[in-house]
């Protein structure tokens, strides 16, 4: 309990200090609760998510960093490894492959990498996974781009 607070505070200080270090990630801690964080991440370039900004919600357990944080997309996203309704993410480092050397910042980076490299063989969004598995890359990309426009970009005019 005490250890998780101390560590989150360290991460908070690091985030404040290195704000400019990674322009694709903006991590914000809930003022009233150090166990609740929000992140804004930019969709990686040359993917259907390019130009979008996606919001993530972190719920950090008290055993952190011995247990991984729970992360989900708050922004709607069409991606094989993200549940379309709940925003739940299927990513090994958030489950079995978690290591306490990960930080909230590096988890964000891993999620950006997942956006660029979907794993259609362990889908949470079957429609999206099936498109990729059947080889319909263009179909997947246009769906993903459409949802990026709809949900992750500022409305025009």
């Amino acid at each position, binding site marked *: 309990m005490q*250890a998780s607070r*101390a*560590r989150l505070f*360290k*991460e908070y200080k*690091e985030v404040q200090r*290195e704000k400019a270090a990674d322009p694709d990630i903006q991590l914000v801690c809930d003022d009233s609760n150090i166990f609740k964080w929000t992140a804004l991440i930019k969709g990686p370039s040359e993917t259907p998510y390019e130009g979008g900004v996606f919001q993530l919600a972190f719920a950090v357990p008290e*055993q952190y*960093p*011995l*247990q991984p944080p729970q992360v989900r997309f708050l922004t709607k996203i069409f991606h094989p490894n993200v549940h379309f309704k709940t925003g739940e993410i299927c990513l090994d480092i958030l489950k079995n492959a978690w*290591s*306490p*050397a990960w*930080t909230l*910042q*590096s988890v964000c980076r891993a999620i950006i990498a997942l956006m660029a490299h979907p794993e259609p063989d362990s889908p949470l969004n079957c429609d999206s996974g099936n498109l990729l598995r059947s080889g319909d890359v263009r179909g997947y990309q246009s769906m993903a781009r459409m949802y990026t426009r709809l949900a992750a970009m500022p409305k025009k005019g």
Partner: protein
Amino acid sequence: MNQEGGANQSGSCSGEKESNPCPICLGPMVQESYLDTCFHKFCYNCIVRWSKVVSGKRSRPSSSLACPLCKKENFSVISGFDGTCFQRHYVDHNFEDRFTFSKAHKYRLQCYYSEPGILNDIFDVLRFWKSRKYLQSNMWLQSWLKRELQALMQEEDVDIVVYHIHGVIESFLRRIEQTRLKKSAEAIQEDFKITVSDAAKPFLLARTDRFVTELELFLASGLNIEAYDAVYMQRLGWNTPGGTNGTRPAEEPIQHVEVVPYWYIVDADSDEDG
């Protein structure tokens, strides 16, 4: 997160701690510990806690732990640079009921951190082989082996290994009784070293060669354990294992030229920060 501090790890002094934090708590290293294969550093408590989490998740007990940084499999946690104590904890052992060291074990282990050969002028190893002193069996050998292996393996129950190595030594000595006429003392000594090394290597790893040297020295001394320890420690300039009570060895002013080991084993109950 800047993790490029790996290059300047030379001093373990306080100044560098902030720039090279523990990857688990992100704070300064407390009781710096290493994993035995990849040598990544962590706080002792952090890595032990993590190892418990990992073993708790497994259905079968495992003897290895993947490093949180590089995923390399490691078998033990080595701690002690911070001067609290030198210990090696195997991942498959329960950290609570590990073997606790006696002072004699610490002294023996510390011997392995000093230059070999300091007793060579007192006990003549080659003469032991030449004059065939090995024909008299050494009745203290088994107890000596047990303590030595306990100290080196950091484990209490070493009976099987003692039995194994003792058996190898005895049968070797019995065998050369029959063939000694054909061989020089030097050749016999060489054979002995190879035979015992082969037997001990799986358990003692990098310390095997030194162990064989220490074993020869003990055999050549012809002394019992107490007398041998007394000679050894007098030469090292250390206190006798029973004589100290909480004070650190090798700190008392002594007339002899004191042998400084590479590594001090300090009692766990003494002050961490001095």
